[in-house]
């Protein structure tokens, strides 16, 4: 009996370890974070009382930690991993930069956990709007309103990182969601001009299908890619009529079950139901889907300007590429496209290396310095720095084509984290035929209500 009891106890302890170890880790972090916000705020307010920075006016070695998300690059040397540490070292021999690069999913959790455990990076890239709100409210990031070069950036983009009138990031640029297309396949299907409204887009898909060409490829196994198509459609469908949709969500004047949202999801679902999207897209990853596009297996892919390096290269088949925004508007109705702040550089508020960080940022964002030149020529973001134009023909042509149209930020910029995830998860069920557009919208509403309760 004793032995049996002992074995049951041992099993219980073993199970404890794997079900609650996650919680255990977080708990430790909570203890740190619980008291931290007020401490951090104090540190910021009483800047004069701060401990003297280690590197002020001396040659003492300082190592700064930088965290960035993984970005595809065609260059042999990456800006963040190679050029930035090298050029800073050349200019300031006592400053070393250690860069940590992670894919977006892991990146978000790692940065948050590092901050919660008091080990946040010295500076890091992060997203604008609501996505940065928790970091700002927790007091983890520094007010950069006084940064001298901030005025050089487009104000509306810089302001997307502002909370309570204070600016917390240096914008790295903008990006847009777009549809990459195979010009040769379009020509083969007899499509002579880009679609201007939803019906023309559907006609275009139908012509491609009739010509034996799969119209669209999608890596829906990684559900986040669903956003690329959904937000392009939603731009015109929701915001042309109601540019205040996001603020109305928070006041309760509207919901995701609004007909404009249901129609957005339904239009996207129609593309799958009509057989315009590659078969078995739920089994393809983003990378495999991009390869399918490059190999000529489909004529279009929903992606973004951030996919430039990955999609501008040649695959198994050589063809000319173009980009356009899906026009979900009805004929004669207003068209809206996506143009959104990509990332900004945030600085740890609780850092004792502020002088060194300031030196690096000033060097990085001052026109004419070698680091600035390297940044502007290698970045995949579209510059929002005064006087710096994007040199990529496709991007220039795209921005020029839509310069007179209304633009909006990526739709999820206005939502708490988790809503877009719910949208993508249920939409996978729509693709499988197990859910409807209404289910997607109800799920988003329910998650939004839960997160803003």
């Amino acid at each position, binding site marked *: 009996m004793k032995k049996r009891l002992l074995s049951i106890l041992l099993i219980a302890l073993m199970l404890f370890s794997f079900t609650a170890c996650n919680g*255990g880790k977080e708990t430790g972090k909570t203890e740190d974070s619980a008291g931290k916000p007020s401490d951090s705020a104090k540190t910021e307010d009483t800047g004069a009382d701060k401990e003297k920075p280690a590197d002020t006016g001396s040659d003492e070695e300082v190592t700064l930690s930088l965290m960035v998300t993984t970005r595809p690059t065609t260059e042999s040397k990456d800006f963040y991993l190679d050029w930035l540490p090298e050029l800073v070292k050349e200019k300031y021999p006592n400053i070393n930069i250690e860069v940590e690069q992670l894919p977006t999913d892991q990146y978000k959790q790692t940065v948050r956990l590092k901050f919660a455990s008091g080990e946040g990076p010295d500076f890091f890239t992060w997203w604008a709007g609501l996505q940065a709100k928790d*970091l700002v409210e927790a007091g983890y990031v520094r007010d950069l309103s006084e940064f001298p070069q901030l005025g050089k950036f487009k104000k509306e983009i810089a302001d997307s990182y502002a909370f309570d009138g204070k600016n917390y990031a240096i914008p790295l640029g903008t990006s847009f969601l777009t549809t990459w297309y195979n010009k040769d396949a379009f020509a083969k299907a007899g499509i002579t001009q880009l679609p201007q409204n939803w019906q023309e887009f559907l006609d275009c898909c139908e012509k491609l299908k009739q010509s034996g060409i799969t119209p669209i490829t999608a890596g829906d196994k990684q559900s986040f890619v669903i956003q690329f198509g959904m937000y392009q459609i939603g731009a015109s469908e929701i915001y042309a009529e109601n540019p205040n949709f996001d603020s109305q969500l928070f006041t309760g004047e509207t919901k995701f079950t609004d007909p404009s949202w249901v129609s957005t999801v339904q239009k996207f679902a129609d593309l799958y139901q009509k057989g315009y999207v590659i078969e078995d897209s739920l089994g393809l990853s983003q990378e495999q889907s991009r390869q399918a596009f490059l190999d000529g297996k489909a004529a279009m892919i929903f992606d973004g300007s951030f996919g430039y390096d990955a999609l501008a290269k040649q695959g198994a088949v050589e063809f000319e590429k173009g980009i356009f925004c899906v026009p979900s508007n009805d004929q004669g109705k207003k068209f809206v496209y996506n143009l959104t702040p990509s990332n900004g550089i945030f600085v740890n508020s609780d850092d004792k290396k502020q002088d060194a960080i300031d030196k690096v940022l000033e060097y990085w964002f001052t026109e004419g310095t070698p680091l600035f030149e390297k940044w502007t020529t290698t970045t995949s973001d579209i510059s929002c720095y005064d006087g710096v134009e994007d040199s990529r023909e496709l991007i220039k042509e795209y921005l020029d084509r839509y310069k007179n149209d209304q633009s909006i930020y990526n739709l999820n910029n206005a939502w708490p984290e988790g809503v877009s995830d719910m949208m993508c998860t249920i939409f996978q069920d729509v693709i499988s035929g197990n859910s409807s557009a209404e289910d997607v919208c109800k799920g988003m509403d329910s998650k939004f209500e839960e997160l803003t309760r």
Partner: protein
Amino acid sequence: MADRRKRYILLAFLVPALSFYLIFWISPVLMSFFYGLTNWSGLGDYDFIGLKNFKYLIKEGTMFNSLKNTVTYALFVVLWGNLQALSLALILNMKLRTKGFFRTVFYIPALFSTIVVAFIWSYVYAPHYGMIYEITSTIGFTKHLNLIGNSATALLATAFVETWKTSGTMTIIYLAGLQNIPEEILESAKIDGCGAWRTTWNVKIPMLANTITVNVMLGLIGGFKSFDYVFALTGGGPGKSSSTLMYSIYKMAFAESQFGKAEALAAVAFLFILVVSVIVLLFMKRKEMEA
């Protein structure tokens, strides 16, 4: 008196390890149950919200769906994994000239890291490019399997990868069990007229009762812990069709920044797994005694 002093001294030696265990293990676990009753986002302050997290878990179906998927996954891993490993062990225990070579071959998957295995299988399963697609195309099939992109098959396709990876280890354990069966018993069975099948069914398998318990418990715990292959192969999808308890906890905490809710689900997971594991263990022990 001297004995008591000796006992105190021995207990004193336990204090550092016990304190370490209590501070860094037991207290965080208990704290995690508390956080299940809050709306902690992983950053900053939180409020006590009572049982609201549990209410949302039930309302949105996450709790039931994750439990159902975890049980299905674990059952598949236990049943198929053991059947596969036992069959392999019985074959590899035969007097074959090449058994050394095959024992090595079948153990190879166990040497790969999880991420490598997931990467290999993502290409085996990939539609339009994968190994299964190429094979079925070569044979002449026009309708192709999309095992991880289909909500009806994604979970079991993922569990199959886990059994592929763990088959080597389970086989080794069964082999050790088979080699521990005394030769005399097998010979007596032969003298009594038992053929190969009867010897296996009536002698070898009952004699493997202890080994079966070990492998069933290992499979069950592996199945209940299922996270890595789900994360790497399906991301819990399509929809939530392959979202297991551990994956749901991870997603809630790290993708949706709902640490409080994730802790609530972790508490449910703990209680569920504890109860099921104890019941299975007691059942297996009773079976062992009967055998």
